[in-house]
């Protein structure tokens, strides 16, 4: 268990701000027994097939954070060309475009933006990306169907 006093000040500050000034449509809460590990939920943007869905994710700040990016993964199944079947996300700022000037907040905003603007030219799931490029209408229909099945509480 990481005692709060040993947690880097940067992480303490980021966590406090995430809770005090949450981003619209996004929540991130650290687990009590591991303050580097967050339960995240992101609301699907209204201009997207993920509308009305609430997507659960998990986020972990590795020991070399903020020199290395956070690790983030979807726990809710989602039909998206940049998310694979295990929920892993293809997003430049989580890889080579990471900078210590970015934060948990910016990462989660970027993920929300990725839901509004899928990028089938840089896919993680090739099968999904192919459909997205060849028949966008069908792709959007499938994405809505997944949202309905997995991301909307009934």
């Amino acid at each position, binding site marked *: 268990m990481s005692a709060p006093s040993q947690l880097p000040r940067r992480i303490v500050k980021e966590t406090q701000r995430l809770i005090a000034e949450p981003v619209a449509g996004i929540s991130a809460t650290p687990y009590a027994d591991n303050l580097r590990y967050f339960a995240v939920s992101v609301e699907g943007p209204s201009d997207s097939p993920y509308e009305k869905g609430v997507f659960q994710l998990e986020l972990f700040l590795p020991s070399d954070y903020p020199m290395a990016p956070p690790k983030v*993964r979807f726990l809710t199944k989602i039909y998206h060309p940049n998310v694979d079947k*295990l929920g892993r996300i293809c997003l430049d700022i989580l890889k080579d475009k990471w900078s210590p000037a970015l934060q948990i907040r910016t990462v989660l905003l970027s993920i929300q933006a990725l839901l509004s603007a899928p990028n089938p030219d840089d896919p993680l799931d090739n099968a999904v990306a192919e459909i997205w490029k060849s028949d966008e209408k069908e792709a959007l229909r499938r994405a809505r169907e997944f949202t309905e099945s997995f991301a909307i509480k009934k």
Partner: protein
Amino acid sequence: MQRLPTGEVVITPRNFKLLEELEHSEKGMGDMSISYGLVDSSDIFMGEWNGGILGPHGTQHDSRFYELRITVPESYPAVPPRVRFVSRINMSCVDGDTGEIIYGKVPATRNWNRNMGMEQVLISLRAEMASDANRRTRQPPEGSTF
């Protein structure tokens, strides 16, 4: 688990550790004498894995391929994975009826700590196949299962 110079102990949560293990296994490990991968590549919980061990040279297990099933509990890696042989095998650290490994008799599970993974358990089992207690034990027909 990693202790930083500040005294903080950083614990990688189960799912992110399993993703690291999966990526490590997909890169391929040395001579491929052991292998492991998800049973269902879309299982978000990553609970069920297939394992494989190629029997070591100069033993009764030579050139046999053993299939195993690995179940990763929610409390992993605080506790080791549950491992059982699917392929039938006669070995002092394996239950002869079920194929389950006997935790206290496999060094990797007996001395488990959260920095270890499925790879260490499979390597440890392979080493047991070559131990004095097991290397000459007669084996069931190749291809039979528990």
